[in-house]
């Protein structure tokens, strides 16, 4: 299943509908097994596009299609539910809950719908071990930045989502950790057959990306580099 965009236009709330949209994307496809990198200068609309693709924002016009479902036609609660089942998120600043342990952070999303996270604990431990993060009783903010981003990755993968969104995932890391995270994102796409959609300027991520879209002023400035299936 692929995540596809058709005729996507978006204006901020309160903007005149006759005005040019701040984001105007004719088509994008994100397919399983690939890393799609969205790059561009600040203010070009990269993060807005990410929020539209993940259903956090509803587009003013156009479609965001997952299988036969158009996210643009879903209400907010339905999009929340879709995101919970199908998406993982990684952020520049990790956004772990600092007063929780790494394990508690990884199973956090289990509490959104259930009372207990017990049945996810084994998987969470396995993910932490896979990404080389100690299963410690210490709070998450005591970990190194690289470890914190790997905890965030483990958190994103708890429900084995088919799509992973990463917003500047290496921007807060040193070069070595940035390279590690970039490598992990590439591995996730290929080994787990995930559609990995990354917003970044990082050349390391350019190296692992299967396709790169460059945005300028809310439009695709250059044709996608790489092969679009």
């Amino acid at each position, binding site marked *: 299943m692929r995540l596809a965009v058709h005729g996507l236009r978006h204006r901020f709330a309160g903007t005149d509908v006759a005005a040019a949209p701040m984001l105007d994307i004719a088509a994008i496809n994100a397919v399983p097994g690939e890393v799609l990198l969205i790059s561009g200068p600040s203010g070009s609309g990269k*993060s*807005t596009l990410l*929020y539209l693709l*993940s259903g*956090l*924002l509803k587009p003013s016009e156009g479609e965001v299609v997952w299988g036969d479902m158009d996210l643009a036609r879903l209400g*907010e*609660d339905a999009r*929340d*539910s879709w*995101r*919970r*089942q199908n*998406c993982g*998120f990684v*952020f520049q*600043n990790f*956004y772990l*809950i*600092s*007063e*929780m342990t790494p394990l*508690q952070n990884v199973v*956090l*999303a289990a*509490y*959104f*719908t*259930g*009372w*207990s*996270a017990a049945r996810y604990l084994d998987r969470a431990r396995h993910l932490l071990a896979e990404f080389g993060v100690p299963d410690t009783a210490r709070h998450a903010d005591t970990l190194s930045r690289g470890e914190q981003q790997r905890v965030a990755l483990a*958190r994103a993968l708890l429900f084995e989502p088919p799509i992973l969104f990463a917003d500047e995932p290496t921007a807060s890391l040193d070069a070595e950790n940035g390279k590690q995270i970039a490598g992990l994102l590439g591995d996730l796409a290929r080994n787990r057959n995930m559609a990995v959609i990354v917003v970044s300027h990082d050349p390391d991520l350019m190296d692992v990306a299967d396709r790169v879209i460059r945005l300028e002023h809310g439009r695709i400035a250059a044709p996608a580099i790489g092969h679009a299936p």
Partner: protein
Amino acid sequence: MNPFPVLVSMFHKQRLTLLLFVILVAFAVALGVAVTSQERALRQGSARAADKFELLVGAPGSQYDLVLSAVYLRLSSMELLSPSVFAALMAEPEIEFAAPIAFGDSVDAYPVVGSIAEFITYLSGPLAQGDMFARHGEAVIGADVPYRLGQSFRTLHGMPGAETEVHEHEIAVVGRMAQTYTPWDRAIIIPVEAMWETHGLPDGHLHDGADEDHDDLAETAGYDHDEDPEDHADADRIGPPFDAEALPGVPAVLVKTSNLAAAYGLRNKYRTSESQAVFPAEILVQLYALMGDARGILQWLALATQVLVVVAVLSGLVVIQQLHTTRLAILRALGASRAYVFVIVWLYFTLLVAAGTVLGLLLGYGAALLVSAYVSSLAGFTITAILGPQEFLLVGSLLFVGAALALVPAVFLFRHSAVEALRQS
């Protein structure tokens, strides 16, 4: 859904600030709880202390002084009821007894009161220890007087704290009353004849053994005067019937009637230029009415204080909550529903207000107990503060207000755009 793991982390993050807020709410609630429960305890305690004092008759003067002196033993100098009125009272057909209450002496700050055995039995029921006094030199003590049976003492002339001289007669403790939870638990009761005699007054009995008036009075009062003629000549004789010619004045007389109608009748009859007759309960109602106005103001002030504190605390929490806006937006990005965020924010505020109110309830109750103990020691009657519906209503109202106010930030964050928060982070 389970909001508590996230809530716990949020509480942990600002624990010291939140603790301060909880304490602020707790103090505001404690103030209200302590005021209302203490005021009620004072009313109940004072009413219980006056329960057995049906009708008091004294010389004309302040009704309050009469009640405070005779019921609460807050003794003050009072005019004496004339012997003729006392004698007339005892001759009333519908009374069960008329007990003189003669005070003015003390021992070790315990008031010494002269009265009759019927009065003691009426107050205490069966004695807790020992026997009833049977002659001048004997006393029955209240439950809280720390004397032993058989212990002797000499009374001091004057009220506690204003004693002037030691009386020469020695008095021995022969009995102890059961606990009454009234100021009389701290009283030392001696035969009224002993009190009169100590002060150089006639002791209420003619000792020549031939007074016709005395016989008439005794018969009218229902005492079987002729059964024990030897007592008549006994200088140590105590208790009714008294001889009208040998009666001195008394500060107060407690009248126990056979029925309520009789009590009302006597009250009206003895409201004259020579005497006043009062129902202590009626005087208390007047006092409570005065207190009630102040209580109403205090309660409103307490409630207003609590609401203001809760509003102030919630305002502070809204500022704190803004620190969590990004965290809540991240939860949305990770798939949490708006309802989940709503529940977290609402519980965050409501649980803090609830913690403050519950802590305040306990603190207020503790404070009320301490104040009760202190006021009991001052007032001489037992005041027991307990939490009642009023306090629970107060706390419940505050919780309701807090929970309702908590909806404001919850709805705000429910409607707040997660993307907006993520952009600002």
